[in-house]
């Protein structure tokens, strides 16, 4: 019964068994990292869009009352810039930037105080808010029999302070 104490070849068997598991774990980690990068870029796009929209002020109202007030097209400006910024990450997206921006919930609150019915937040300054569901490609998850598209929820709020 000497073969029971012979451990030659066990390293090969162990490698063959564990290598796929390690590869799956490694692929999952890579995909999660890629999703985090995509999420950061999408959040930056939403943040920048709201900042640009807040920078768009109603000059006539400012001259009349001296108070900052959002321009009438602030929501359109936010949506447009959100699409422009998303377009820079187009390879990551499962859809066109214009479609994603068009489907985003963009709200402008030109006067304050105002209450956001979506978040329940109170805004003490004129505020622009973007809430969007952005579909991002996750092909490694798809290869692992998971969802090939992951939806990232982003929300960005900006106001002059």
């Amino acid at each position, binding site marked *: 019964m000497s073969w029971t104490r012979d451990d030659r070849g066990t390293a090969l068997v162990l490698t063959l068994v564990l290598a796929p598991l390690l590869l799956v774990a490694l692929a999952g980690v890579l995909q999660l990292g890629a999703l985090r990068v995509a999420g950061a870029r999408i959040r930056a796009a939403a*943040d920048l869009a*709201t*900042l640009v929209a*807040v*920078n768009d*002020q109603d000059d006539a109202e*400012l*001259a*009349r*009352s*001296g*108070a*900052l007030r959002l321009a009438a097209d602030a929501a359109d400006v936010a949506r447009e810039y959100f699409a422009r910024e998303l377009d820079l990450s187009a390879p990551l997206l499962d859809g066109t930037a214009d479609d994603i921006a068009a489907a985003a919930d963009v709200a402008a609150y030109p*006067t*304050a*105080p*105002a*209450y956001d019915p979506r978040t329940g*937040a*109170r*805004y003490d*300054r004129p*505020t622009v808010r973007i809430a969007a569901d952005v579909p991002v490609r996750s092909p490694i998850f798809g290869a692992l029999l998971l969802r090939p598209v992951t939806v990232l929820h982003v929300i*960005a*709020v*900006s*106001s*002059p*302070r």
Partner: protein
Amino acid sequence: MKRRSAAATLALLVLMSSPAFAWVPFREDVEPPVPAREPDPAPFVAPPPGIYYVTDTYVADVVTSSGPLTTYSTTTVHESTGSYARVLDTVGTGASSAFDGSAFNGRRTLGDGRSVAGTYYENYALTDGGFVPISVVFFQDDAELARLLAVATRPPAVTASPPPTPSQAARSAAPACCSASRPVSMPASTPPPARPIRPGVSLLPVSAPLSSVEVLRGRTVTLWPRAFVDDREVPVLTWALVAGDAGEARAVSGPGGAAFRTSWPRLAPPGAAYDLVFRIEIDLPDTGRRTADARISVIVRSPALEN
């Protein structure tokens, strides 16, 4: 034997035992039903007295002149901002109020230096902690006959009849031009003071003067020093910034036809503002060369992300 006796005694006691006839004196009393108490959907917050929901929002003070009549009114816009308000004080022409100086839009003066009539309102925002005061605004509602000042100061003509006193002249002239729908401030019988200069600063050459203005950080803003005498604009000869942070201004003085252009790259400390004082010089044939200081408070804001 003792054991048997004890066991027999114990058994006898057990067999002959009966429940004690104790009774609860209030057992028959029926407990009154307790009404089910619904939890309050929201804690009751006692509102300040006289508060109401705002449906017309302050826009600007308006001074209009129609012939001899100058009217001081306030424009509003039919808009609900979710805020509340209540009346603080209603003041007449020239009367002082404890809230003078507290309104963000100030309180104007008539041509003779008296304060205009109107109403002070305090605005509130409803929060979880109750009604929080936000600001005080003054709604002006007054009028004056500007030309009566000149009538009152004119020397009386030599006639056979005794000349009317200025107050009589004013009183007799009032019904001729104005209905009684609005109280008209009449000039006093004492000699009126020198015509005051009312300086102001506006964002456009023809827009309303402002006491404070919000600007975005780094954005170029144009301020026009202006002057009014008897609520009529008079040309500014020169102006100079004599106090306050000029920001990145190209020039801190100039002729009346030029504006003060600057931008502020830095925010003021929290809760503070840049208070600017412009010394305005005017030169009119009837007033001569005079100066006045116009003040404006500049609040620099910057677009920022909210959490």
